[in-house]
């Protein structure tokens, strides 16, 4: 059951100075790499820095490189390693180190802000949104993203080319553009911006991002390639895009599933006298 494992953990700080530190540590049945890092903290290295939250693969905080593979520490079971094997943990390579296994991922927050937000039709009030399940499913796949940034870390367009960080949003945020473009009610045209502002052209479809995604999102096939195709379509024939939007709308109307249709119908009334977009004065 339990055994003594050999670990090497990168220790260092923001200056960039650091080295792998060897540890020997107990491993019990069913444990994951993050359990072992916690045991190191509690018993051998109280100040070992690691970022984590949920320990259940839902928050995307504990990203690191384990034996050189970008992984979530909480979802990497010790049973995947040979008992004799030395397990090496290093911080994400693409982002600056803060301390030990923790990196500065603010690059991603900057990129998130560069993408214009969801823009709903102005004539649609809260409660009147109608979308069909089949239409929401495509963007929903991308909203499974837990923002672990493993794809951002892995994509060679920035991993090996620091200079591209300025112009390239990275797979996570190109997927966000694609998600908004596929949102049944988003009215903004995002195709030119994908290419011109967010650097979609830097992606050359090597699918490294898809390979490391812990949520198994098909980033390249379902988000980036379709986006590239639509960019090409728009460039050659803008009517193609418009035609698709119109078709989609008709399709929805046939199912009584558009916002416009719902305007005739007062919609679900839960009996509350309070308006949907305001809670009015709050002082009793």
């Amino acid at each position: 059951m339990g055994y003594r494992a050999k670990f090497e953990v990168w220790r260092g700080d923001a200056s960039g100075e650091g080295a792998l530190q060897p540890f020997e540590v107990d491993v019990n049945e069913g444990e994951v790499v993050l359990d072992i890092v916690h045991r190191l903290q509690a018993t051998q290295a109280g100040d070992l820095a690691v970022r984590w939250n949920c320990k259940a693969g839902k928050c995307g905080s504990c990203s690191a490189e384990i034996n050189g593979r970008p992984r979530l520490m909480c979802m990497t079971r010790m049973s995947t390693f040979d008992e004799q094997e030395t397990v090496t943990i290093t911080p994400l390579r693409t982002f600056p180190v803060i301390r030990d296994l923790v990196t500065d991922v603010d690059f991603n927050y900057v990129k998130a802000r560069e993408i214009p937000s969801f823009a709903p039709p102005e004539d649609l009030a809260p409660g009147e949104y109608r979308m069909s399940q089949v239409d929401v499913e495509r963007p929903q796949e991308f909203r499974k993203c837990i923002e672990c940034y493993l794809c951002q870390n892995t994509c060679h367009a920035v991993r090996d080319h620091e200079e591209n960080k300025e112009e390239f949003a990275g797979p996570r945020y190109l997927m966000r553009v694609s998600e908004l473009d596929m949102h049944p009610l988003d009215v903004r045209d995002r195709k030119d911006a994908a290419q011109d502002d967010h650097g979609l052209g830097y992606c050359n479809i090597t699918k490294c991002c898809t390979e490391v995604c812990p949520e198994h999102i098909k980033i390249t096939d379902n988000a980036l390639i379709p986006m590239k195709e639509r960019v090409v379509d728009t460039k050659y024939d803008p009517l193609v895009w418009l035609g698709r939007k119109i078709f989609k709308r008709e399709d929805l109307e046939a199912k009584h599933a558009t916002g416009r249709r719902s305007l005739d119908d007062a919609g679900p009334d839960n009996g509350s006298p309070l308006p949907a977009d305001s809670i009015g004065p709050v002082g009793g």
Partner: protein
Amino acid sequence: MADTSGTPDVVHHTYDVLVIGAGGAGLRAAIEARMRGKRVAILSKSLFGKAHTVMAEGGIAASMGNANPRDNWEVHYRDTMRGGKFLNNWRMAELHAKEAPQRVWELETYGALFDRTPEGKISQRNFGGHQFPRLAHVGDRTGLELIRTLQQKIVSLQQEDHARTGDHESDLKVFHEFTVTELFKDGDRIAGAFGYRRPTGEYLCFHAPAVVLATGGIGKSFKVTSNSWEYTGDGHALALRAGARLINMEFVQFHPTGMVWPPSVKGILVTESVRGDGGVLKNSEGERFMFRYVPDVFREQYATSEDEGDRWYTDADNNRRPPELLPRDEVARAINNEVKEGRGSPAGGVYLDIASRRSTEFIRKRLPSMYHQFKELADVDITAEPMEVGPTCHYVMGGVEVDPDTAATVVPGLFAAGEVAGGMHGSNRLGGNSLSDLLVFGCRAGAGAAEYLDGLTGAPAVTDAAVDAALAESEKPFAVRGEENAYTLHQELQQTMNDLVGIIRRADEMEMALKRLAELRDRIPRVGVSGGRAYNPGWHLAMDLRNMLMVSQCIAMAALERQESRGGHTRDDYPAMDENWRRELLNCSLVDGPDGPQVELNHQPQPAMRPDLFDLFELDELKKYYTGDELGGHRADRGM
């Protein structure tokens, strides 16, 4: 050894509103305050977008009536009060039931993509204690959708600010990986807050007349918990130290279904949606044991046979719901009892079986995260075999006492919303009512803070002495060298709460717990840390321990005092619910003692329900909860 000598600098910032916590309640509060024209800072222990809200799986309860048109706020209100065994603050439950649909619809305007009904409306699913399918959901990752949607709304507000001011962060700024250690007051009023940046250890002082606490819960005081490291009761403790009161701290929800194997994942949540979507609980003898555990107060609402329970999934109007969907406290106690009486699974839980009841395709579509979680962490294929599950500490019903309409505490300028606030859920929270609580009262807290500022005369000031004292307190662990280990003390605290103030409680055990907590109180100040201020988890834990200890004392004291069993408080020595205790609330405050501030416990009366709300219930049901003299004035008395 990193340098921690010398007096570190403190950087100062000024804002209108500080929101502490970046989960659902905090983000919704920040959005509301910003949209009402205030400059807002969000202070979050984790990275922006990682809050514990992402762990919520099942959905957001809101009576939109999309799945069953008979649903409305009155039904939701009744379900919520029943779930809380009528100890809920009725006004909070009323506002919650009325406003939840608007708060959900609003998320769609921010870009949320919920699962849909065939008509294209938001799909709603069944959950424990809810009479109708009521939970808006996205598969079983609804919390992630909620947090991402609110995060993206914040970004969109920052984009608007950028267009106007040239700075994304001019009016709404997120300070992530930031821990607040102290609140400042000027006289009675809030004046600001102090804390450190976790990555660098840099100290910041915020000058702000309004603070919204949205820090979540206390689960990290217990060993087996579904909660993440952030849940150290910071907001509860900050509120106490600032002079506010906590109520209902004895009520801690143990979610009936946490993972029990392998040991390292013990406690991780298994969503109630498994049962809402048809999963059943079985003991080692293969028996669906929940039919034996329907309490008298719920007898009329639950099926008495497996056939009736199974028919309910397709015909809810003509059948009663299966007892697997009783409120969480009932199910958790039942599982505990089955295991205790020797009918548990090998790892000490019971079986949760959806494999034999629903198709593989259905399970993978409705419960993708659960499929993934069991596959990756336990090598269990939930479409082929049952899960092993058992109770796990999940939620604290108790929290900061607030005014329902404004989320204001008794301290002027201090507001609280979400799990850190108390009252809304009474003695037990229904599944799905948490995400809606975050939105409804997060919004109200943001609005309450903005209105408070509009009426404020003169700006409260932070004194240099207060800043120096807060700084000295944070520096203490560096001055003490190595006598006690923060990790060891944390484990002792968790073991104490788990073993002695857990799901089933007894007076002698809780007295023992209080004794051990008192010992920890002496030892925690002697915790030393190695290393410097930059991203030092040992130091972070040393600071958080103070808060975990304080809330643990509140829980143990209140639990010892309440001599009845109700909701998330079960006494082995007082197994019955007592209607006289329904009128009593227990509150905790901090008073000066010989060795510094001490937690003090007091009784306060529960406010009586407004007559029109009282009349929403049948007299026969109220009789199960109320004393005879409280029942006068019901419509039945007036011949209605």
